[in-house]
């Protein structure tokens, strides 16, 4: 198995290298497109390979040959590999979509020369955050993807995007600062930022300090993941960006936050002292988010609110702190990344076809663009949790885990989850009725949809269906990933095999600190 560890850094290195190359070739847009598609395809292949390999046990790389607790390590375990594969598939689809859009609009419409490098850096940052086995390196990954996201969100620098961007950037900076301070405190308390070593050392430090660290990290990740009281920035900033950018943000960025919560809660703070708080936060996120969605009359905003709302489901699974809850959460994250991104891409298509995303001015699309109607209807039903689609399976898993938990709080969450699910269905059906069935208030402009855009959106919808068809193996994989999360020794053992050191130089513990 060790002969494949060289694969682990590739999802970070390849997009970064591609980004540099694409930036250097900014005068050759054709070449740029080829580079970015090739780089993202390579990442997808590598991630899929890692997905298979990691099933036999985590793959660990000590970067630069520096041994683990001092040097930085990348870990591809089942959870990371699954997240990586799903995100790679999504980034590739969105990239193809935006390429088709660029082709249809002509290259003058967007400053493509910086778009491709930035997008690749975003992909590298996401991969780094997923793979990192080191708290500080997670921070670096977050910063990479955030810096790229700032650029993508304010692309073109129009007044509306600067308005939305300033809110987004300030909130993201705040969460980064919180995260940085939390890391400093962690280092002060435990003398390490390596996740595996932290897992060993944190139980030894003062419980009060441990709680403080947990709360600080949860706050930082909670802002990124858009958990209710910290979610207000999201619905106002995402919808202003170009459709592919919104789609990839909605699919990936919040999930990176969710991933970080799963990782730290399970590995570092297994005693679960914040679980009740997380439960309440999950309930509030679900209900407040979906009520916001019901009130919207703009499709993109509506989808942004459903995004916030469904973060609550994942949080619910995490807060249950049982294997069943975690596996349902992991499956739900995979499902939600694909479905939500697909819906945003379709919203972009609707905007192109109907000239607007305001539900008041759309109408009659079912007759005008039946393919579009199908592309919207399937992921919408999926998100609403209609059986037998993957949204239903994920929700059933969560509800079962909640009932198995049996506490009144968990049962409240189960009820809240069902209500939220129904309200999601209501909000999406409302959108469906208005955009596709009502008589349009005034005739829609005559526009055709580029085949490439429809094709890549359709690819994501089909991928969402594939999650349903392959639900058995995938759910099994999620269950094994959750089991690995529960048994922390597997992770710790593979990062710090014997004597508490990873492979590579700096083997002596006493001399460890000289090697950073």
């Amino acid at each position, binding site marked *: 198995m060790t002969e494949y560890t060289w694969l682990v850094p590739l999802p970070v290195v390849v997009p970064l290298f591609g980004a540099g190359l694409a930036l250097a070739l900014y005068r050759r847009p054709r070449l740029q497109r080829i580079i970015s598609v090739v780089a993202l395809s390579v990442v997808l292949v590598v991630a899929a390979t890692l997905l298979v390999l990691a099933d036999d046990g985590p793959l660990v790389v000590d970067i630069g040959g520096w041994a683990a607790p001092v040097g930085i390590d990348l870990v591809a375990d089942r959870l990371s590999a699954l997240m990586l594969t799903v995100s790679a598939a999504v980034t590739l689809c969105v990239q193809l979509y935006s390429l088709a859009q660029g082709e249809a609009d002509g290259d003058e419409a967007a400053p493509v020369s910086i778009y491709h490098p930035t997008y690749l850096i975003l992909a590298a940052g996401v991969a780094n955050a997923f793979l990192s086995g080191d708290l*500080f390196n997670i921070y670096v990954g977050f910063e990479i993807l955030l810096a790229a996201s700032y650029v993508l969100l304010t692309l073109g620098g129009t007044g509306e995007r600067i308005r939305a961007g300033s809110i987004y950037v300030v909130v993201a900076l705040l969460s980064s600062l919180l995260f940085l301070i939390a890391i400093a405190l962690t280092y002060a308390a435990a003398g390490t930022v390596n996740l595996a070593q932290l897992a060993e050392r944190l139980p030894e430090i003062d419980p009060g300090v441990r709680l403080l660290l947990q709360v600080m990290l949860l706050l930082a990740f909670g802002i990124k993941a858009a958990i209710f009281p910290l979610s207000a920035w999201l619905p106002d900033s995402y919808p202003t960006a170009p459709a592919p950018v919104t789609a990839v943000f909605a699919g990936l960025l919040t999930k990176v936050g969710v991933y970080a919560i799963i990782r730290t809660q399970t590995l570092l703070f297994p005693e679960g002292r914040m679980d009740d708080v997380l439960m309440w936060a999950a309930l509030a996120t679900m209900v407040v988010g979906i009520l916001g969605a019901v009130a919207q009359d703009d499709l993109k905003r509506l989808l942004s609110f459903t995004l916030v709302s469904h973060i609550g489901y994942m949080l619910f699974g995490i807060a249950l702190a049982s294997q069943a809850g975690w596996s349902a959460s992991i499956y739900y994250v995979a499902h939600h990344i694909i479905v939500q991104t697909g819906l945003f891409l379709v919203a972009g298509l609707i905007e192109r076809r109907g000239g607007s995303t305001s539900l008041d001015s759309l109408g009659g699309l079912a007759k005008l663009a039946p393919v579009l109607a199908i592309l919207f209807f399937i992921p919408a039903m999926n998100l609403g949790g209609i059986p037998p689609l993957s949204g239903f399976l994920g929700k059933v898993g969560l509800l079962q885990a909640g009932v198995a938990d049996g506490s009144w709080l968990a049962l409240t969450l189960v009820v809240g989850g069902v209500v939220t699910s129904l309200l999601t269905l209501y909000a999406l059906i409302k959108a469906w009725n208005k955009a596709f069935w009502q008589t349009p208030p005034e005739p829609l402009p005559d526009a055709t949809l580029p085949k490439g855009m429809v094709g890549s959106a359709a690819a994501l919808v089909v991928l969402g269906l594939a999650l349903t068809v392959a639900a058995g193996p995938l759910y099994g994989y999620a269950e094994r990933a959750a089991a690995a999360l529960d048994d922390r020794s597997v992770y710790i053992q593979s990062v710090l095999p014997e004597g508490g050191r990873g492979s590579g130089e700096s083997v002596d513990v006493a001399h460890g600190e000289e090697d950073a």
Partner: protein
Amino acid sequence: MIDMSPNLVLVGVIVVLVTAGVYLLLERSLSRVLIGVILIGNGANLLFLVAGGAAGRPPLVGLELERDMADPLPQAMVLTAIVITLGMTAFLLAMAYRSWQLHRHDEVQDDVEDRRIARLAARDQRAFEDADTEESTTTLDEEAAETRDETDEGGPGPAGVGARSGEHDRPTDDRGEGSR
């Protein structure tokens, strides 16, 4: 063993930096927010230094005794954090400048949704007083187009922001972006 009690002067400086930073973050103007971010960022960097223990000799194996060495790990992290903060500062600065180009100010504007809710509340208030409700047929889109420049009338508006109609004071907005 290195003395691990924290340096009180540094702790005091961190407190001042973070306090001032939080105050500035709560301001409307992006340049003040920017200074706030820089201050808190530096506070966090100092916190890393405190976390690394007392200062010592350069950590060069073979040249210095190991027990005299400073802990290099937090210094490596601080270096990374400084670079990242620098990049973010540059971006925020560019964004503030762009905002100034477009609107002649660099203030963070209200959430459209917030303003809508505030306006609804204001309308309800009137309705309670004289039962004469005002009809509004604007959609969120139109409202967003109108309200994006509410801070143009000189300074962050005090209370009553929500009650203002915003239709008559549409300023020179971003349509003129190409003029510079």
